[in-house]
């Protein structure tokens, strides 16, 4: 850039100077420029400058991780905006919901987006876990990141659970009453844990303020930190998992050229450029610090990775927006401790637990879930096999896949039964049949044709 002098020159170059002070690189046109752009931008530099082509295969990742993170961002923004209107007090909370659903500008939209994104995040995080499991990606060296992921799942559930109480309507009050009652079934410490959560023996003002602080400060903090760790470990563990052999030069070169050609709409090149110049960006690539001059199966993160991520984000935002416009978040009558609905149901993702609790309080509410979580956490340390990583439903992992699928299906069935097939007194009902008139309630007597005088 030609430097200009004098006041007029300073004025003329003012916009360019401001721009270049913020964005150090012009829009990149070479591989080096692309690397520099990624490397020197605060928001982009958590990404590697080069991305393995396998990580960009939509059918491999399904974009679930980015989707979950997008939902987290949507929740963060809508949640902070909602905080401007919410008061965690039993007298005011429900009134504030009414304000949001009518008077506050965009209040309905914000509340709907927050509600549907929260449910969506629970679902997507679960699906993300399934993806990682079915592709065997938790195996060495990614064991610890799997553990971080399981913690993030638990945090997500807890975030959603604490948020469930805040509207202080009947749905919230009784779902939390049921949910915390399940916690109370834990041996020795159950009652204490419940008391610690509620600050009382029943759900009330103390519980509301505790859940509020957990929901808007404590849990988001840990979540943000753990998300950071989760992303950082992806880099340190050598990027996303990929099938064995996808790094072999012959395969790489062909794949990379084909992908590049496809992405750029160009005719395939004969060969990748062999003589590359590596800056620091090249050194910090993969799990190890290395500089190689070998062709590999990577493409520049700018633009391929970023466009893919942006696409997933936009798609997620679109779905949440459509849901928020079409479906209103439920708001029931204000919480009333003397008027329990029958049945009282926990949030949907805990209905599997509640269903199991209806058979055995301890095993359903505490025993089985604890075993399940422990198994999840310990999984990468128990399963030390190396074959079948990076491939969906690999033949080498038939036993693991089958076991996991079975447990998953059982839980799914329990959730569905708990959601749709349980009526008053937790009795089995068929959702598409109208409930029969209770045999205890005899038909009212025929009304007298005319009431006798004097009545």
């Amino acid at each position, binding site marked *: 850039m030609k430097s200009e002098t004098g006041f007029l020159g300073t004025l003329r170059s003012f916009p360019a100077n401001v721009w270049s002070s913020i964005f150090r690189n012009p829009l990149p046109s070479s591989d080096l420029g692309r690397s520099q752009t990624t490397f020197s931008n605060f928001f982009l530099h958590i990404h590697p400058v080069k991305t393995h082509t396998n990580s960009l295969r939509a059918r491999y990742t399904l974009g679930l991780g980015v989707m979950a993170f997008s939902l987290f961002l949507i929740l963060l923004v809508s949640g902070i905006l909602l905080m401007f209107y919410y008061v965690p007090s039993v007298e005011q909370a429900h*009134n504030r919901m009414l304000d949001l659903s009518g008077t506050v500008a965009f209040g309905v939209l914000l509340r709907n987006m927050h509600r549907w994104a929260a449910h969506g995040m629970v679902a997507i995080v679960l699906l993300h876990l399934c993806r990682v499991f079915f592709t065997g990606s938790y195996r060495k060296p990614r064991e610890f990141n799997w553990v971080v992921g399981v913690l993030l799942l638990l945090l997500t559930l807890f975030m959603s659970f604490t948020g469930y109480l805040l509207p202080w309507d009947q749905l919230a009050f009784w779902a939390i009453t049921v949910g915390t009652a399940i916690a109370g079934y834990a041996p020795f410490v159950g009652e204490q844990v419940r008391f610690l959560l509620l600050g009382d023996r029943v759900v009330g003002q103390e519980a509301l303020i505790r859940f509020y602080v957990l929901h808007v400060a404590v849990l988001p903090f840990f979540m943000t930190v753990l998300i950071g760790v989760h992303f950082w470990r992806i880099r340190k563990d050598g990027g996303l998992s990929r099938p064995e052999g996808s790094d072999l030069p012959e395969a790489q070169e062909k794949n990379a050229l084909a992908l590049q050609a496809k992405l750029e709409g160009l005719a395939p090149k004969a060969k990748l450029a062999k003589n590359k110049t590596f800056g620091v960006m090249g050194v910090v690539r993969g799990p190890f610090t290395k500089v190689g001059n070998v062709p590999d199966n990577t493409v520049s993160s700018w633009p391929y990775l970023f466009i893919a991520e942006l696409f997933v984000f936009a798609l997620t935002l679109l779905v949440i927006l459509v849901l928020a416009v079409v479906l209103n978040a439920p708001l029931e009558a204000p919480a009333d401790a003397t008027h329990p609905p029958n049945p009282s149901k926990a949030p949907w993702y805990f209905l599997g637990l509640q269903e199991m609790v209806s058979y055995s309080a301890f095993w359903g509410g505490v025993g089985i879930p604890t075993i399940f979580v422990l198994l999840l956490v310990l999984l990468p340390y128990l399963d030390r096999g190396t074959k079948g990583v990076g491939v969906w439903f690999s033949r080498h992992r038939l036993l693991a896949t089958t076991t996991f699928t079975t447990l998953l299906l059982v839980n799914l069935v329990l959730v569905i039964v708990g959601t749709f097939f349980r009526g008053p007194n937790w009795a089995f009902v068929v959702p598409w049949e109208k409930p029969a008139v209770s045999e205890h309630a005899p038909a009212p007597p025929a009304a007298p044709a005319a009431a006798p005088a004097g009545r």
Partner: protein
Amino acid sequence: MRSALAFISVVVLALHAYVFHNQFFARWQEYQQKYFKDAVAVSTNDAVKAALTARRPAIEQTIVRSFGAERVDRCQTCHIAADDPRFTKADQPLRTHPPVPGHRFETFGCTICHDGQGRAVDTEQAHGAEEWPWPLLPKELIQSNCVQCHTQPDWAGAPLVNAGRRLFFERACYTCHTIAGLSYGSIGPELSEVGRRRRWQYVKSKIENPRATNPTSTMPRQDLTDAQRMSLVAFLKAQQGAHISRAPLASFQAAQAERPKWLPLESIVGHETGAQLAAQSPAQRGAALLPKVGCLSCHKLDERDGRVGPELAYTSAQRESPWLLAHFRDPKSVVPGSLMPPYPLPDDIFDSLSAYLLSRRVPDVPAEPEKRFAALCSRCHGEKGQGNGLIAEYLDPKPRDLTKAAFMRTKTRERLVASVMNGVPGTSMAPWGKVLGGEPGAAALVDYVLAAWSKDSAAQVPKGRVIPAANLVAYAPESIARGEAIFLNRCWGCHGKKADGHGPNAEDIVPRPRNLRNAPFIASVSYARLHESIKYGVQGTAMPAAGFDFSLDDKTIGDVINYITSLTRPAPKAEPAKVAEINRTSGR
């Protein structure tokens, strides 16, 4: 990928446009704009026209701080023409509110009369669907909110509430339910703040069918017209005071101290009627009071039938004055399973009522046993004698199922005739001897019942039973203790640990196990019958033959009977020598 991204971005932008449009052109804004337009059309003043044309839609709200907790009423955001008298014929939400002199919207808001969610500006939320605690009240129930301030008794502006209050007494609701300052019943739930805690639809459904939401409710279902029900609902919706029991301890105790032994008659029938009645003879007074204090809310007399309690027309041939007075004061003292609440009324009213009942001529009864059964027995025992008559569900013990031949045919005819003649003390079975014209009439009825309903002739009155005429064991503490041990080993499963007939198995047994704490009944049964029932069982019921099944000998059965007797009779005095012996053995 890039074109897909571009497409999605465009759709997201379009959605934003939609959302912004909804935000800035909401329904209430359309209503307001329509109002501005219509108001301009009917305005004559140019300045007003200009002002209306310049006006932009805005949330209209009233913050009411003068009445209890702060209310924010935004109703006029849609109902913007409520205080504009020119829109009396317009469609809602732009119609003029009918004038209510002295009630300015700025001071009172809207929800204080109408209920509903004042904060919402969306129809569904504001008017509140049925599950909301404060859905918009139907017009006629607004009275319930009027009387929150207009507390004068019988205020003319709330005819429905006043009619409801009269029904509350006429239908005997006051005998079971407490409403602070009005009544002191303790059998049903307190209703002092039912209007604040329940939706009117719920209150109405409970009156229509008390068992709709609570299958074990003992509240009798009242035979009311819909208008009567609505007036009761209006009266109950008006009960928004605080529960007596939730008041601070000092004021609770004060209220209890002030609690009268009985309700003044004037508060039930009104001052005028009360004064008129004072001059009349007891029987006349009773005749006037009987339908007013709630008796016919359950009982049957002449053409009125509450469909819950026994018929009163035959009282003069069945009961004496002392029995009636004892029954009025505490029905459970003579029929322990009675549903009837003790009446909070002074003795002179009970005197009048019994004078009236005893002065009535007993209606003529048909001569044929068949017609007699239909006229006298079927109300409890059912048209076909199955024990499922009109009022059977409200009686305890339940009326006998006369079709159960295994029971009926194994009892002596003399015993059955005696039950009809003298009634069964402690139960709702009244003595019918006088009505039926003495023993021949009763015997004929029993023969008819046996022939018509208890047809299984295979069952026979058992013979050759060995039963001691009197207890072989003295009535003494040790015997009672032994009897209790046996009872808690063998009998409690059905009769219950308290011997009140509510053991864990009792629910599945028909007829229900006897309540052994039913003093009038136990006192009326001979020792021999108790002994026989325990030793040989009771055929046609679930009572087993303990003398054989559990190998209880006659002395052990004597212990058990001593225990049963001790439940309803004062404890025996131990002899001094024995007391000394017990003290010695226990080391005192």
